[in-house]
């Protein structure tokens, strides 16, 4: 009797094990398209066999093991993080491409060319009201072009600030999801493939946002470090991030946009640790590219420098000239005005008080030249005394436009390459831990065919065994 019960137990264990193995594969098939899911492999364990002690042997189903490969996961996360940076730079800088056109067809570059042409036309007929009006009109275009460029950069700055805030919120939400996973792990260490899939999907999304390092703890929980140093999640503890905008007390240009920083839950500035993900891209644009154009507490901004230098050069040439020789001689008036702060590009306008007739074409000399000032202005772009960093106004603007264009172009091509790298990393990971429906289908059909054949033999054997029983009865 003990033998019979033992045998039935062993048989029952084997049946249970088999059933659970099928459940694992069914789970694999169901989750073939679930993000972050890694194939589970059924693990069958031999039970002790001791006929005297009543242990009937057989097999039982151990905890399923997933085929997740942490190296592959880490590779995907690292590549995704880089992709996030490039894509963000590309997206954030794209709106600037139209205003920083280096071809001379639109924007500031075209406005400069038009104004130089107007100065040239005016120099040929200095007292002609049409050429004078032409100068005022072209000067208006230059002011408008600077205002539009500044406005576009400011608008990009505002949207970058919003994106920074939203990205940090997403990072904190992902950290909370991981915290919940850890709490579930601490409460029950039973493997849960769906929980695992959710965790890995969250980690992958998080790596798109920032450079993270994942640490697997002995108790099954995961720790997430930002930049490999700052803890974001450790066990059931989350350290949320914050975005702050600060102007240093000793700022040289306090009126300029503040610096964006990422701080940890203790208020420590961890901005320098962010080197990947869209957060890194946003910080690079927010604290690098945009301030270089419209300034920050520590710099005036190249667009402002250009606007101010150009306006000052035109104004000083006109004010040193004369509208008429008199007597008494009438000095020229400034063509451009701008605000008192450092945001020159945004506030650059044509002097509202100037009339066409007040344009000072006469260079008092000596020798006096009746169109001398107009000629100087027509050749302003080649006057080395007005150069910025050794570049004429047109060249300086071209260098700004080229710089912005290069950053967009570099980010675009890097994002394109990185997309391929991420695809490769995911393919490798998929080979190691993914679920292939083809593989499952072939395996099941082969199994079904093999088992079907064997079950026919079993039926014959059962009939033979019945014959033996009939004989001995």
């Amino acid at each position, binding site marked *: 009797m003990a033998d019979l019960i033992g045998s039935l137990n062993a048989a029952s264990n084997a049946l249970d094990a088999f059933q659970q193995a099928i459940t694992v594969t069914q789970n694999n098939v169901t989750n073939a398209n679930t993000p972050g899911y890694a194939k589970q492999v059924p693990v069958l364990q*031999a039970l002790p066999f001791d006929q005297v002690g009543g242990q009937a042997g*057989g097999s039982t189903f151990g905890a399923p093991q997933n085929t997740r490969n942490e190296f592959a996961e880490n590779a995907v996360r690292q590549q995704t993080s880089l992709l996030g940076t490039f894509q963000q730079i590309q997206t954030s800088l794209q709106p600037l491409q139209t205003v920083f056109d280096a071809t001379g067809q639109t924007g500031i570059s075209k406005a400069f060319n038009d104004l130089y042409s107007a100065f040239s036309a005016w120099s040929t007929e200095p007292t002609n009201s049409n050429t004078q009006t032409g100068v005022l009109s072209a000067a208006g275009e230059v002011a408008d072009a600077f205002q539009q460029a500044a406005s576009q950069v400011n608008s990009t700055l505002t949207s970058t600030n919003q994106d920074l805030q939203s990205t940090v919120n997403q990072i904190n939400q992902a950290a909370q999801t991981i915290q919940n996973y850890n709490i579930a792990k601490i409460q029950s260490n039973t493997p849960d493939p769906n929980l695992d899939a959710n965790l890995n999907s969250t980690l992958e999304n998080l790596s798109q946002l920032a450079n993270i390092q994942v640490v697997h703890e002995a108790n099954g929980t995961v720790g997430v470090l930002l930049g490999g140093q700052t803890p974001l999640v450790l066990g059931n503890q989350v350290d949320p991030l914050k975005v702050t905008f600060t102007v240093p007390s000793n700022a040289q240009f306090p009126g300029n946009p503040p610096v964006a920083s990422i701080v940890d839950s203790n208020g420590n500035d961890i901005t320098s640790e962010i080197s990947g993900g869209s957060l890194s891209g946003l910080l690079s644009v927010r604290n690098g590219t945009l301030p270089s154009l419209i300034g920050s507490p520590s710099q005036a901004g190249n667009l402002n420098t250009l606007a101010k230098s150009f306006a000052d050069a035109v104004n000083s040439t006109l004010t040193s000239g004369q509208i008429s020789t008199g007597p008494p001689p009438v000095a020229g008036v400034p063509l451009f005005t701008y605000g008192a702060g450092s945001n020159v590009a945004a506030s650059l306008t044509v002097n509202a008080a100037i009339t066409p007739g007040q344009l000072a074409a006469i260079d008092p000399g000596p020798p006096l030249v009746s169109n001398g000032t107009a000629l100087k202005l027509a050749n302003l772009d080649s006057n080395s005394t007005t150069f910025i960093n050794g570049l004429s106004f047109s060249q300086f603007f071209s260098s700004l436009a080229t710089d912005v264009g290069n950053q967009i172009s570099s980010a675009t091509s890097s994002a394109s390459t990185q997309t391929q790298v991420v695809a490769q990393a995911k393919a490798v990971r998929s080979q190691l831990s993914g679920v292939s*429906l083809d593989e499952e*289908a072939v395996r099941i059909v082969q199994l079904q065919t093999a*088992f079907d054949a*064997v079950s026919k033999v079993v*039926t014959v*054997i059962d009939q*033979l065994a019945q014959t033996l029983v009939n*004989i001995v009865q």
Partner: protein
Amino acid sequence: MERSLQADGQYRSVADCVRSAHKNLAEVKILISRPTRENADKSGDLLREVEVQLGCAAVFLGSAPERPDPGLVKEIHELKRQTEFLVALFGETNRFLSAWAGRVLVQRNGYTERGAAAPLFLVPRTSAEA
């Protein structure tokens, strides 16, 4: 009491045949707890051996002048329980595998015009040589 098999010398008695069949069936039980094609194939080989062993046992018993001893009868009944278990297990396995294969094939290949899972054709291994 027991008759020896003289023909090939492999199975000398009913008890020999029954015990060997027992051993093979126990191995089959362990093998099919790991649902792989290889294990199913190995199980098939072992079961064909059991078929021969039981056939031999039936021949020995049919030609025996007296009833076998109670110990052997007990072993034959135990063997019958084992084969019943295997019939049930393989029946269940086939049921599971059919439903399972249907589900995978529908997901992978879609349906046939009659609403069944589209079949998967397994091509034997081929090689191409210049």
